[in-house]
């Protein structure tokens, strides 16, 4: 793996709390000394947040498909829901 990917792996270990307490302290000290590293950590956290948003959107689509399927194939489900909102 090239150097940049190793660094991404290391940052992941830090943000996912997979580092030992001692390694965490060393990493935090490196962040304090290097603003650039701090920025990379921040961007990586944002990348994780983006993946989470993407995943939630995908899951919402899957759930909409479940609803549509039930609506089309389960008459008692459809009439129950229709009665609630009539």
């Amino acid at each position, binding site marked *: 793996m090239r150097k940049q990917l190793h660094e991404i792996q290391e940052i992941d270990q830090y943000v996912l709390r997979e580092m030992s307490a001692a390694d965490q302290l060393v990493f935090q000290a490196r962040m304090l000394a290097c603003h650039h590293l701090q920025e990379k950590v921040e961007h990586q956290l944002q990348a994780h*947040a*983006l*993946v989470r948003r993407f995943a939630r959107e995908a899951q919402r689509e899957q759930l909409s498909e479940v609803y549509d399927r039930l609506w089309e194939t389960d008459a008692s489900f459809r009439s129950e*829901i229709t009665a609630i909102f009539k």
Partner: protein
Amino acid sequence: MQEKEAQWLTTVYRDSFPQVARTVQQLGGDQETAKDLFHDALIIYLEKQRNHTLDIRVSLKAYLTGIVKILWIRKCKQDSRQRPLDNMEDQLGIPEDFYTPAPERTTRLLRYLQAAGSKCLQLLQAFYYEQRSMQEIARQFHFKTARSATVQKYKCLEKVREQVKNTREYEEAVA
């Protein structure tokens, strides 16, 4: 979605949605709102299950209805007289970033990344969100080994991270 999971979701949907719909209707919401809030509640439940932070002392139906009530109140931005529900919110532990509406920048970034390579996002989703093992991911995405899937995972994360950085730099430059 795997077959077993899809079947489970359909059963939960069939069993729980009518009660949630009744609750939302009583609160003044419509069918679309009930559906959206129910989906969010189910997503919160599934996330907590994956993270092993689920602590349910009631039935699944009651749990989902409780989350939907909180989401409804958030949606309506009710005033501080609703404070008692805050305790309930703490107990249910809704993820911190769940309510935060996606800023314009995030939405744009997401659209860009989806267009640029949804396979990368799917791979990242499988690991970081669905918490699948690298062996499983290697099989699912047709990599020869878990090691090569891991390298690809970091390449994908690098791509997303670069895009985050570039978008921010661009916005700072034009601000």
